[in-house]
Structures are given as C-alpha cells and as structure tokens.
C-alpha cells in the first residue's frame, strides 16, 4: 500500500532533478539577492507583511499542545503556542541555548534541582485579549496526562512527583499537586528527582497555557487558543491545510524571540517531496515566498542544485543532534565477546556508509555516540581509531583472538523503508564495508512497522541492526540516558536501551549530572560519560546527518539553529 514505491520514488527524484535546474533557469534573476551561508541566512532587510507559504510532506496532525511531540516547541506549533521557555532563535550553535519565553527567566532551581520556579512576564494575553495566568500553564501541563490526549514526550510523567499515576484533569479534577501556582504569575514544579535540564523541557508545547473554560478536549486542536504571534483560522483535514493569521493581541514587547514578519502563514501538506523541491526551485507565484520545514534535498537533487549558483544560494544547511549507528545485543553470541564488537568498530568503512547516505554534504562521520555539537558535550574521540575507511587488519586480529580466525558470519537487520537511515542502501554499504575484515554480513530486511516493533521489543530485538537516535533538546541527558541508563530498560513496551546496559557506575553518573544546572558543566560531564561508554563498543556510531533545505527566492532572514537543524519559520520574512 505504500506509495510511491521505492522504484517510483527514485524515478520521481531523477525526473525532478532534471527539472530542478531547468525550472530554475526559467525563473530569471533573483529579486533580493538571497544567499545562504553555513547556517542559512538569506539577505535583504526583512519587513512585515505578505504571506509565507510552507510546503510540507507531513501534515501538522493533532495540533493540540498536549499531543505534540516536539523538540523545542516545534516549528509551526511555536507560532501559535508560547511556552515557559523557548529555544534561542539564532543561527548555528547559538541557537542551542534555552531562553525565556512566557517566563521572565529560564527558571530558578532549588539546590538539588528538584523544585523549579518560574515567574510570568507582565502583559501576556491570549488571542482574545484575556490574560494568561500561571493556572493556565498548570492546566496545560495537566491535560497532557489525559489518556485521551496521548502523544507527547514522556518526561513529565517520569519527572513530576505523582506524574506516574496521574490521569489528567478530565478524570482527576483535583489536579496534580506537584504543580503549584501560589499566585497568578508564579508556577512551581516539584520533581521526583534532580533535573538540571528542566528549562529545556519547558520549551515543549505541553508548557503552553490552555484556558480551562475554553478547553474542548479532543476538539481543542481544531480551534486552539493562541498565545503566540499567529492564530489558527483554518485547520482542514487534521492539519493538512493550516492557515495562520496574525494574532492582534500578541505583543512583540513580551516576545523577543519570534519576529513574525509575514501577516499570514499558509501551511500546505501532503505533498510529494520531489514536488516540494521542484516548486521551491521554480518559485512560481506564491512559491517564491515558500519554505519547507520537513523536506530535505536528496543526493541527486543536491548534486544538480550545486551546479546552479542561484539555486545553491537558496539552500540552507542545518545540523540537528542525531546519530545513526550500528546496535548490538551484547548479551547474545557472538556479540557478547567485546572483541567481536571492537572488530566491527575497527572494520567499518565510514566513507562507504556516508556515500550510501548521500555523500559528505548530507552526512558527517561519527566516532562518538553524542552528536558533534558542543551543547551535547561532544568531546572528539575515537576509541577504535581506524581512519575513514576502516582497519581490516586490526579487525581480523581481534576476530582471531575471539576464535573467529576463519571469518565471522553475522546477520544485520534493517528496515525495507527507502530512507537514508535504516534502509537497504545503508545496510548494503555496511555489508560491503565489513567484508575486507572477513566479516560476512547477511541482510535481513523487515517491513517498516515490523522493524520498528521488533527493534524496540526486548523479546524480539535483533542481535545486530541499524539504529538511530535524535535529541529532544540539545543536551547530553536526553541523548544518553534513554539509550544507556539501565533503569530505562523497558521490558514491555518501547525499549531504546538496545545494549541492555545496566551499569551502576553509568546510572550514578547520569544522576549526578542531572543535578547540575550549569549547562556548560553538565555538557562537559556528558562528553566524558559518552567517551567512557564508547570504549565498551556497545554501539558503532556511523554518521551524523546534515540537512539541506531549499527555500523560495523571495524568502529573507533565514535562520537555522543547531537545535532544530531546519529553517525557523518565526524568523522568516517575505517582504
């Protein structure tokens, strides 16, 4: 039922890449001399007005702040929902900082970071002019516990005292005692354990205010009450066509992060990726003032675009904390022998894997599990140095020591989805990359949903498979803890600790870092922990993806932070 098929997608991309350059040539000279630098940044002085069109593949489904699973409050959602804190809307590494949004600062922690207090700014109002209160934020957080409004990130349930059993305000009208609102402007969160990253969590849409008297439960997504610069005037087919217009009660005085230049934002989804890139390249009519927030340029498209100066000036480059890696089950043979895992780590030829992922423009080699960004605490290291193309001799030596002198045969499980992450292209590249070391890799492809279910189930997890991990915010905590904290091994449900690592020393260090509220200091410790875990060869990091996004010729003020890796629509101007 999946459409288009692998073949059709490839043909489609081929046809469209042929059209990209031709289409662009027909567009004539650029109107505003847009030019993207490393982190984006199309030129020209931005002005208010006009309509920004967003051309997307995936619809903005379930546009309810309780149900959205976002990083930093999301891109489109962040136009409607303001949160206690938000991401710094700047290019590159500066954009990984957390900054105040509705709150006056990023929160005041107690000594052990188990109690966090926020004070709201003055003059905050909803789209109808009524004031935003701390009680509304408490109610917004509480709704996200309702089973009817499932879908959000798991942290609140894990972190808030009593969150593990709370069923939301529809069933438990009393509310959650862990959130206090001593007055209209103060909100206090009581946590079960120390969490220095709480200001990062407070960027998620669950921390947006929801007025209790206007909560319509499951129907809230149709007409949410805006606290941001735009309000929803149309939400067709569950987010397939979302039309946002300026919220007259939004005040720039209280919101230094969002510029909100365009008067209207027209989000059109359900489009084919090839068509999106073709439309952005062509820039006809409204497409000249269009961007995408979810569609990358593919390798073939990028190669064509690179040959055209005008088009390549309209490509923004983004980095999002993400690592693609090989996962082992170190409890099963032959991967229970560390020398076998080390042999795979030495043997891997990252150049060929990166080529399969689209080339060096779309993927950077990874030798650490943490993404190669400072905010995560990335400390350059390579516990198994073998160069870009691998060290087959060293791998053979280790295999011989482990009793596999005649070679090793293993099975690599991958998804049949045609992506550049867990799909057949990467699997085949890994297969070829390990061959010189005498490792024969058999491939086992699983249908996408089957793959997802099996890899996340402890009982069914394959012993060796392609995996990936992305950050919910740019910090080492959400990157390392779910994957290496032994207390997060999920026996029945979605497990991400594939290595089943339950090392008290690692667990204790995670707890210790979580108490640190100084992000720079915490990052340093996360980096050290990453290096320590890396030495055990529980994973083989392969690459960190790079995002290349085309934008329309009339688009100005392109900002791409390393938090999201994509163009920030709250900064874009079309005039």
């Amino acid at each position: 039922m999946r459409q288009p098929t692998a073949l059709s997608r490839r043909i489609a991309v081929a046809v469209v890449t042929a059209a990209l350059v031709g289409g662009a040539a027909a567009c004539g000279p650029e109107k505003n001399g847009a030019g993207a630098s490393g982190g984006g940044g199309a030129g020209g002085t931005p002005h208010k007005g006009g309509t920004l069109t967003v051309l997307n593949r995936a619809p903005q489904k379930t546009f309810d702040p309780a149900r959205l699973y976002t990083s930093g409050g999301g891109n489109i959602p962040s136009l409607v929902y303001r949160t206690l804190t938000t991401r710094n809307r700047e290019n590159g590494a500066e954009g990984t900082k957390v900054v105040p949004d509705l709150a006056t600062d990023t929160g005041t922690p107690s000594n052990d970071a188990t109690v966090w207090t926020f004070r709201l700014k003055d003059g905050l109002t909803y789209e109808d002019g009524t004031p935003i209160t701390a009680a509304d934020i408490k109610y917004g957080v509480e709704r996200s516990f309702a089973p009817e409004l499932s879908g959000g990130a798991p942290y609140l349930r894990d972190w808030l005292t009593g969150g593990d059993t709370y069923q939301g305000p529809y069933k438990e009208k009393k509310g959650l005692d862990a959130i206090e609102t001593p007055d209209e402007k103060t909100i206090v969160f009581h946590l079960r354990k120390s969490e220095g990253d709480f200001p990062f969590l407070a960027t998620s849409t669950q921390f947006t205010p929801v007025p209790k008297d206007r909560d319509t439960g499951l129907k809230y997504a149709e007409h949410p009450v805006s606290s941001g610069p735009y309000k929803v005037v149309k939400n067709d087919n569950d987010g397939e066509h979302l039309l946002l217009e300026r919220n007259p009660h939004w005040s720039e005085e209280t919101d230094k992060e969002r510029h909100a230049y365009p008067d209207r934002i027209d989000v059109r989804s359900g489009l084919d990726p090839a068509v999106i890139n073709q439309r952005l390249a062509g820039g006809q009519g409204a497409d000249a003032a269009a961007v995408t927030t979810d569609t990358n340029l593919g390798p073939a498209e990028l190669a064509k675009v690179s040959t055209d100066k005008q088009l390549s000036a309209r490509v923004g480059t983004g980095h999002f904390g993400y690592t693609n890696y090989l996962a082992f089950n170190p409890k099963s043979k032959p991967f229970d022998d560390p020398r076998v895992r080390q042999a795979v780590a030495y043997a891997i030829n990252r150049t060929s894997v990166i080529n399969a992922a689209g080339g060096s423009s779309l993927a950077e080699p990874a030798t650490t599990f943490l993404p190669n960004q400072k905010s995560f605490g990335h400390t350059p290291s390579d516990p198994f140095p073998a160069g870009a193309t691998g060290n087959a001799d060293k791998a053979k030596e280790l295999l011989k020591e482990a009793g596999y002198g005649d070679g090793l045969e293993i099975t690599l499980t991958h998804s049949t989805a045609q992506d550049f992450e867990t799909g057949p292209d990467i699997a085949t590249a890994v297969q070829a990359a390990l061959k010189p070391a005498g490792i024969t890799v058999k491939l086992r492809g699983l249908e996408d949903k089957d793959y997802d279910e099996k890899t996340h189930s402890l009982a069914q997890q394959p012993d060796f498979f392609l995996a990936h991990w992305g950050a919910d915010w740019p910090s080492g905590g959400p990157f390392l803890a779910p994957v290496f904290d032994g207390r997060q091994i999920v026996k029945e449900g979605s497990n991400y600790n594939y290595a089943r690592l339950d090392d008290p020393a690692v667990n204790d260090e995670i707890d210790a870092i979580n108490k640190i509220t100084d992000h720079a200091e915490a990052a340093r410790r996360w980096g050290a922990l990453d290096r320590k875990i890396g030495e055990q060869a529980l994973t083989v990091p392969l690459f960190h993806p790079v995002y290349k996004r085309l934008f329309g010729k009339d688009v100005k003020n392109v900002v791409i932070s390393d938090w999201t890796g994509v163009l920030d629509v709250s900064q874009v101007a079309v005039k």
Partner: protein
Amino acid sequence: MTGYLLRRVLGALVVLLALSVLVYALFYLAPGDPARLACGPRCNPEQIAQVRDQLGLNDPVHVQYAHFLQSLVAGHDYSTGTGVQHCAAPCLGRSYQNDLPVTDLIVQRLPATVSLALGAMVLWLLLGVGAGLLSALRRGGITERLVTWLVLAGAATPVFITGLMLLMVFCAQLEWLPFPSYVPLTEDPEQWAWNLLLPWLALALLESAKYARLTRSSVLEALAEDHIRTFRAYGVSERSLVLRHALRAALPPVIALTAVDLGTMLGGAMLTETLFGLPGIGQLIVQATRTVDLPVVVGVVLVTGAAVVLANILADVLHAVTDRRAALR
C-alpha cells in the same frame, strides 16, 4: 426492475459486510500496535495500556467488530474529555490517531476525490472515445498507427511519471499552469478547474487507452454489421453512419466500463492524489494504513466498496437502458 435492484442492493450489503470482516481480520494479522503508535514514540507500558483501554482495544476482536456494527446502525457517543460527542449513524468510528470521527474525515476528503474522478472521467471519455473513433475510421492508415502508439504510450507510462512530466513541462518550464493546490469548487470554480487540470490529464492519459481500444473494436464491429452495409447501400452518409449508428452501438460497453472505473476512482487514486497533493480519499487510506488506523481503513474500504458496487449496479442499469436487447433479471 425494482426486484432486480433490491436483489442487487442486498447483495451489495452482503459484499460490504464481508469486506469489513476481511479488513478486520487482515488488520489483526498485520504488524504494528495501534495503541503504541497512537501513544507516541516513547510511551511507557502503563501509558500504552491506558491508550489501549481508551481506544477499546482490550476487547476481543469479535466484540470490537460488534461495537463497530452497532455504531454503524445506531450511532455512538464518545467522550471528548470535557464532554460527549455524538456520532450519528452510520457511524464509522473514530480515528485511532487523531480521534476525529471517520465519517467526518471521509466527508472532508470526498470533494477532492469526486472532483478528480469526475473531471478525469470527462477527459478520458473525450480522449479515449475520440481516439478510438478516429482509429476505427482511419483503419490501416498512419493516423490509426499514430493513435495506437500514443494510446499505448499513455497506458504504459505509470501515472507518477506522466504526472511529473506534466508538472515539469506545464508548471516548471512553460509556467502555463500553477502547481496544483486543491481549491474547492464552491470557493472558486475557475481556480478549481485550473488546479485540477493536470491531475485530470494524468489520469485521463492512463485511462483513455482502454476506452480507445474498446471504442475502436466496437465501432469496427458495428460497421461490419449487415444493417450498416444496407444503410451504406441506400446512400446514407459515412458521417451519419458512424455517429448515428456505429457509435451508438459502441456506447453501451463504454458506459458500463465508465461506471465501474468511476466507482474505483471514487475510492481514491492514491498515486495521483499523493503526487499532486490532493487531499482526497486515496491520501487518507495511505496515511491510515501506515499508522495502523483501523477505523479509518475500514471506513474508507467500506465507502470505496460501496462506490464500486453501486457503480456496477449503475453500469448494469445503464447497459439495459442504452441497449434494449439487454434485460435486467
């Protein structure tokens, strides 16, 4: 006629019922846990259990199916958290993914699908019947060979290639047409037509081949009939022969085929809708299948099935009306 229609409608209901049982059965054999998917990427077992309970997935399959049938006949009341929402009969349930009523989801998407199907039908009839007629009249000549070649090329090219080529030529290179973006007919009829022109054409090029072949063979068959020869001997003009007699004889099978094709199209032209970004039934079922959204899948399959079955009945009736030799029994 009435008895015939009643029998066909009853038969259709049985077919639809069987279809719904089949979809339910297939759904439970397919991989993917809807509760886990609806819950989100990192739900713990307790949360998944709550969502499973909320969706009614803890009930045995036959009980879930019985609830579905009950809702279909008598409607159903759903909790929205803050109140109760009534889903009137025939209630197809609520989506597991976004909790919206399936009936609403389908109704919202019908205009795009109906617009696509009807417009494409007009075009494929014009192209197909026209090409068939032309090649029958120019039999053996270069025109027939050219038409046959073009028609075969249209039929042999997948719709996503034809569609992309059309986009590339008319939108990117020539800039004669906008990149399609669905505009409802009620909002702006002119923009509705302009934006649907390429999707119509892409589908019509694919579909018109069989109509051309059918028309050609039917017209040739009709032209070889004794009474046509007699008319010709009496001096009736060739134009009149073809248009008044041969084409009329060729129409019944074309009409029957059109009704069936239209029924199928109403179930959603998935590739065309996906390629041109049309918010229709085809896109809905693709998304629902990916997310194991059973109520939506069953709802769309039933509506599609009903469209196909009704189109078949319509085809039989039209066949009988256009060709009085055929009787409805």
